[in-house]
């Protein structure tokens, strides 16, 4: 049985289907990347899968049980969610932000272990040197890495509850420099190798092709293509989904699709 | 507390001079302007150890005695700190919790009924007189007040055409707050043989401009509040008032608030003053209408 499944899940707002009858199954250890143009419904699909918004029709199940039947604290031990850029209302320190990540589920963890867990997450997201800083004073990229540390801590804290976990990342590298983009995606891939299913929304198709086991391509609320990057990422898809005429090269000995902006062709008038 | 002050020889001398008559009687806190006024009129002021903030007359009352605050917002500990034996208070005094605590401390609380009539004034004088142990002085004062009231009645019966008086308590942003039926202002106006122009209004209420014109007052009556009072220009420059007969004759009468509305021992004099202002000597013989 899959870890997470969507059965014809739709999200309708104001008479418009933001997500239309999405069917999806996620297995442990998979790194799935959702791509698509702006307004394709990527974030809405993520919200359905995380349980943040109940489906208007169809259903989302975790372990075969409808997500609405899961209490928040049990879901929290099972999956962590890193949303897009986050503002804090109050000047929490970096340590406190990460600690908040485990507070909801980490009641069983004693303070000593909790501190060790926070320290490991800070190091893994490369923000340990910011530990005593006020979150509000950090740069956008630094804040994003702190949030990444927070979801890592949450997964680690929830690990004793249940083996197979899911990590949702909504544009996790949007504000990051090249080095940290790789660092975050490497960590995500590492988690996937350890058995955690990772579902990420990315805009960079090259990054998506590099890390994804499976691509989910959305347009207009509909999943239009699904499969390994090498199999589905071609010129026809780019043109139909992104309205861009660009040639797809092959890197890494022909196994990895690679898109170079220089190879864009002028749109026919 | 008193002992500490007596240690200083000068203070000792001063305290003896000031305090010696007080040894004769109880320590009293007066709550309400009319109560204080009666106590002074009876010559029992040496018994006062505190007055409330509405005790404006005589002026020395608030100057010489500690102020225990607004009549409706007394402080239990504040009053108790004056170590009174008795509180003589108007009906409105409060809050009830503070009064209950004061009573619990063994202080007698005497409430003086509030009746806006000549009989009410006489009853107040008699009551306060017996409470401060000055029944004879109270009788003399009451007789004097009764004579004044008789004088008012005699003069009132000679009035042929009552003038219409509108009592204006305040003007805020050009909105007039007037005295309707059931108010002390209404009672005083009627005692002075005039007619309250604020008909159909109960209590002190803001009134619309049109209602002022419809009331057609011959005289505007108002009160002085300390240094600042309504001047005729303030009132008659307002459109609503400018259309009244009072504006045509520029008749605005301003009197001290406690004097006019307090219903204390000065009531007859206040009413006579008001009559003087409302019916100048010439107006008595002159036929109006």
């Amino acid at each position, binding site marked *: 049985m899959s870890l997470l499944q969507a059965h014809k899940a739709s999200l309708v707002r104001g008479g418009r289907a933001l997500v239309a009858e999405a069917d999806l199954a996620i297995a442990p250890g998979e790194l799935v990347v959702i791509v698509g143009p702006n307004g394709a419904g990527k974030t809405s699909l993520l919200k359905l899968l995380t349980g943040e918004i109940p489906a208007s029709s169809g259903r989302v199940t975790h372990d075969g049980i409808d997500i609405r039947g899961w209490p928040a*604290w049990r*879901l929290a031990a099972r999956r962590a969610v890193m949303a897009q850029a986050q503002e804090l209302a109050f000047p929490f320190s970096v340590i406190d932000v990460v600690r908040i990540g485990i507070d909801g589920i980490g009641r069983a963890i004693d303070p000593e272990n909790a501190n060790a867990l926070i320290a490991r997450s*800070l190091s893994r997201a490369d923000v340990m*040197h910011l530990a005593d800083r006020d979150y509000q004073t950090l740069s956008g990229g630094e804040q994003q890495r702190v949030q990444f540390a927070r979801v890592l801590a949450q997964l680690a804290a929830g690990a004793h509850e249940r083996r197979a976990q899911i990590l949702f990342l909504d544009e996790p590298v949007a504000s990051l420099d090249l080095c940290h983009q790789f660092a975050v995606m490497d960590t995500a891939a590492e988690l996937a190798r350890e058995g955690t299913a990772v579902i990420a929304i990315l805009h960079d198709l090259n990054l998506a092709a590099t890390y994804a086991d499976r691509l989910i391509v959305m347009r207009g609320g509909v999943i239009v293509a699904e499969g390994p990057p090498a199999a589905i990422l071609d010129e026809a898809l780019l043109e139909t989904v992104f309205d861009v005429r660009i040639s797809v090269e092959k890197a890494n000995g022909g196994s990895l699709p690679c898109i170079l902006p220089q190879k864009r062709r002028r749109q026919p008038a | 507390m008193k002992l500490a002050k007596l240690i200083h020889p000068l203070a000792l001398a001063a305290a003896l001079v000031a305090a010696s008559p007080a040894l004769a009687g109880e320590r009293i806190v007066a709550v309400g302007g009319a109560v204080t006024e009666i106590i002074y009129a009876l010559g029992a002021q040496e018994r006062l150890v505190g007055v409330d903030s509405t005790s404006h007359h005589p002026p020395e009352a608030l100057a010489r005695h500690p102020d225990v605050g607004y009549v*409706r917002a*007394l402080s239990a*500990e*504040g009053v108790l*700190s004056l170590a009174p034996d008795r509180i003589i208070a108007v009906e409105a005094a409060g809050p009830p*919790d503070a009064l209950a605590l004061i009573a619990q401390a063994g202080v007698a609380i005497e409430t003086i009924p509030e009746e806006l009539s000549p009989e009410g004034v006489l009853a107040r004088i008699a009551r306060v007189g017996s409470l401060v142990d000055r029944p004879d002085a109270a009788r003399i004062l009451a007789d004097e007040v009764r004579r004044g009231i008789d004088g008012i009645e005699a003069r009132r019966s000679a009035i042929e055409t009552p003038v219409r008086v509108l009592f204006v308590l305040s003007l805020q942003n050009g909105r007039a707050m007037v005295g309707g039926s059931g108010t002390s202002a209404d009672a005083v106006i009627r005692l002075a043989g005039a007619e309250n122009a604020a008909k159909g209004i109960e209590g002190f209420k803001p009134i619309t401009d049109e209602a002022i014109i419809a009331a057609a007052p011959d005289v505007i009556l108002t009160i002085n509040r300390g240094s600042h009072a309504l001047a005729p220009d303030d009132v008659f420059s307002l459109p609503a008032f400018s259309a009244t007969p009072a504006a045509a004759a520029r008749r605005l009468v301003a009197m001290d608030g406690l004097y006019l509305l307090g219903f204390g021992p000065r009531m007859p004099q206040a009413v006579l003053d008001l009559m003087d202002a409302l019916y100048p000597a010439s107006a008595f013989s002159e036929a109006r209408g």
Partner: protein
Amino acid sequence: MSVALENSRIFVEALTAKRRRSVFATTLLVLCAAAIAILSLKAGAVEISAGRVVAILLGSQAETGRDALVVLNVRLPRLLLGLLVGAALAVSGAMMQGLFRNPLADPGIVGVSAGAGLAAAVTIVLGERFITPVIGASPFLLLPVGAFLGGLATTLALYGIATREGRTSVATMLLAGIALGALAGAFTGLLAYASDDRQLRDLTFWSLGSLGGATWAKLAVVAPIILPILIATPMLARGLNALVLGEAEAYHLGIGVQRLKTTIILLVAAAVGASVAVAGVIGFVGIVVPHLLRLAIGPDHRLLLPLCAILGGALLAGADILARTIVAPAELPIGIVTAAIGAPFFLWLLLHRNRGIVS
């Protein structure tokens, strides 16, 4: 490796510094509250020596009469009421600010003050005519009950308006709160219009707040409402911390957000309603105290909420000392004292904030 060592040093130091700051702030505040409590029993219009105050508190048989009454039935209930009401207002303020994710949210935002104010106006203005004949007593006795019920009713109405399909929109609540506040204000104005001079003065005094009406009886009514709330609130600290990240994030972190919101709103309505009922409207405590503490010890609600209770109580009890001694034997409404101290202090804080002391 040395970089890693340096980094872990920062981590350990940050943890130690935070712990040291918490211990220091807690100790300081407890000492400060104790000092104010002692001063509060000693200070007042009636001069009583410290020795006698102690003897009276210890229940010495020799100490009876006026001084004993003043200490035991005037100052002590007043002190306790001040501590309770101050704590309730400050903790409610902190919870509202957490819920609305806005440091300027006032406990009054849930409509408690507006509703309580309206109910108080009804009691004061119409009480003598309609209530006294029924209960045969002064409407003043019903004022606390009326204010409490009025505050609670407004909050529930607001909550009902803002809740759709089991989800409460905090933004809707804020907007509806402004509308309901204006409506309650209009009715209060209407009643003020219909009131006489004396009732108007009563309304004014009530709306400025006072601990002057403190009695053991009132304390016995209010303490069972406020104390359990103060004891329960630290349990909401984790949820409030998570809420700082946003409602969706709090849900992802395992917080039952809807239940948390409902709980906070009801607790605040009850605590503030009870406070307003016995002490009138007292401003600024709910904003200044949490703000000051956030500057001193950070925004972590696990420490913030209990310290808010201590500082709020101490501050109000302290303000009350001023309120009843400055113009003794009369007294000032405490709302004037808290605003007169709170407003300039708040401005000072804002100026320093702009100079970069805080973010």
